[in-house]
């Protein structure tokens, strides 16, 4: 029982870390219909910036997160204008290829400037401490990740369902020409949501670094995981992404406990079964 509880806590933390990173991708894929395989690359850039700020400049964790989000968005916005804008209405194949290309470039450049070593992001004392849950110790950082995940989910839901920006965004997604006719500047909406998605990626890259360590191949190593999680959840659905992350996180963590020698076997088996059963994802939007 205690073991089950303990695994559940680990699964929850891992799932939430995945969620924070992936939700931005879910938004770009579901709302803007771009298969952005470079999403992980942006999470990685965030991680590098945070590591540089917090470790090399000694600015602290919180400041590192803020800098990472701002810095990554600043890098991403020109890319959106120059590259992404041209593939919004292209085929999935084109989108996949271009974003793989961007990922390769980011990896190559990162490798060139920062070297191939792992980068850590030093945690503040409060988060590094082990918190006693009664049945086991858990790193304070994991609790922070779980809380952040809940805040991100709630905040996004509110933003999209309850604010003017959300209404404009949904209008632009449903029918761009009509939205433009109504005076909504769709390109600004798109750029803003892209920036939001990238900012979340950077945030996820930083807070998730304890699970998915930051190194140049991060972008490629977890590319598949992120894509898979989003598809299982159903692109564009916040509850779907949350459900997928928690489900797949739980399967992954449990399998690693019970049958560690099988690696990701059961993770991908679950993915195949879920996608076959729900081709549009757990809570995908009907087309």
């Amino acid at each position, binding site marked *: 029982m205690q073991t089950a509880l*303990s695994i559940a806590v*680990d699964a929850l933390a891992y799932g939430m870390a995945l969620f924070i990173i992936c939700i931005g991708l879910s938004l770009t894929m579901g709302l803007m219909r771009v298969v952005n395989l470079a999403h992980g690359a942006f999470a990685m850039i965030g991680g590098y910036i945070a590591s540089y700020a917090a470790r090399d400049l000694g600015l602290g964790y919180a400041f590192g997160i803020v800098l990472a989000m701002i810095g990554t968005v600043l890098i991403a916005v020109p890319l959106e204008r120059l590259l992404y804008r041209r593939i919004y209405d292209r085929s999935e194949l084109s989108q996949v290829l271009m974003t793989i290309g961007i990922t390769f470039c980011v990896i190559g450049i990162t*490798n060139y400037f920062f070297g191939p070593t792992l980068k850590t992001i030093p945690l503040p004392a409060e988060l590094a401490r082990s918190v006693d849950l009664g049945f086991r*110790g*858990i790193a304070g950082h994991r609790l922070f990740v779980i809380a952040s995940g809940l805040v991100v989910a709630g905040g996004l839901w509110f933003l999209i369902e309850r604010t003017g920006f959300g209404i404009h965004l949904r209008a632009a997604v449903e029918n761009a020409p009509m939205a433009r006719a109504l005076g909504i500047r769709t390109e600004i909406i798109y750029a803003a949501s892209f920036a939001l998605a990238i900012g979340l990626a950077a945030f996820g890259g930083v807070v998730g670094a*304890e699970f998915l*360590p930051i*190194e140049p191949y991060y972008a490629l190593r977890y590319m598949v995981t992120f894509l898979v999680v989003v598809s299982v959840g159903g692109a564009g659905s916040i509850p779907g992404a949350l459900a997928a992350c928690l489900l797949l996180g739980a399967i992954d963590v449990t399998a690693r406990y019970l049958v560690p020698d099988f*690696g*990701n076997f059961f993770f991908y088996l679950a993915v195949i079964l879920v996608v076959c059963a729900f081709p549009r994802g757990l809570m995908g939007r009907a087309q």
Partner: protein
Amino acid sequence: MTKGFLNRWLPAGALALAGALTLGASAMADTIKVGIIGPFSGPFALQGKNFQAGAEAWLAQNGKSVAGHDIELVYRDLPTANPQQARALAQELIVRDKVQYLGGVYFTPDAMAITPLLKQGNVPLVIFNAATSAIMTSSPLVVRTSFTLSQTTTPLGKAAVERGVKKFVSIVSDYGPGVDAEGAFKKAIEAAGGEVKEAIRIPLNTTEFSPIMQRIRDAGAEGVFAFLPSGPPTLGFVKAFSDTGLKKAGVKLFAPGDLTQESDLPALGEAAAGLITSFHYAVSHESEINKRFVAAGEKAIGAPDLLSFPAVGAYDGLFVISKMIAATAGKQDAEKAVEAVKGLGWESPRGPVKIDPETRHITQTIYLREVAKDAQGRWINKEIASVPEQKDSGLTK
């Protein structure tokens, strides 16, 4: 227009391509080429850089010419374990670049793919790293200057029991060296009076270890033996060990030195403090020859933090190759070259070493080390005990 373009550029392009492909085929008369295969890009690029740094450090100290023959190093990149590409690269080095010696090789599968070529190519292979015992049996033309897992692991058994830790969980990556490590540790700990209660093998690419930590907790072990190849996995493992409170609960972690490679230590920091590892080389090893090696190596690699054990394998590898060249007077004769270094002993930056004439693997001192800070506040592997003249027990059994 198109035609003119093609006419003008196609021959030029073909020439360039031909030139690039046959680069170096027109070698000068008295240059001996040594092909070095290693991960110079990709996730393991740091290890490849260490190969390069070690080799260049040796050349910088000893000059580029041996007994009147110039040495030219030809590097070939093999980013990850990829036996197919390894074979293709080795084949090319032998056939096209006409190398007389092969060196390097980080991963076991790559070494296994290369060894069948050696006899036909009349080329010895000096392995700088790949650490599975069985490689040595696959060809008589292989010499190894690195270590094997059974070699580095065996002393841990006695050391653990001496510290009162007897009940172990063993965790290794599921590949050749991991299996070697698991076997050697089991044997060593049982010989010393302890036991391995549970042996877990995990895939190479694992980075999230909380569930494994839970397994350790549930097994009620006093100690953990762990082997993972250096890189992202080791970092996650050591962190998880500390984060989940196992370290605080008094569970002791013992591991071969791969887990605390010097280049990872800054990142591991406090989480690794006090960790006991056993290994053949620590950058902080106290000796005059090591100081000179480290100085040359750090210069070659560019940053002091990055130097670690693969460099010393390469450094000694070049030494062995230089002896081979001297013994064969620059002629290509793989058998004679290998024969000449059997039993060869010398003082390496890691301490006294010798090529075991039977296994062609290096016999060396294995050190017990503890992760601690040095006088400058840098994290180092501090040597606390040494076991001299360790052979590869994985082969002699």
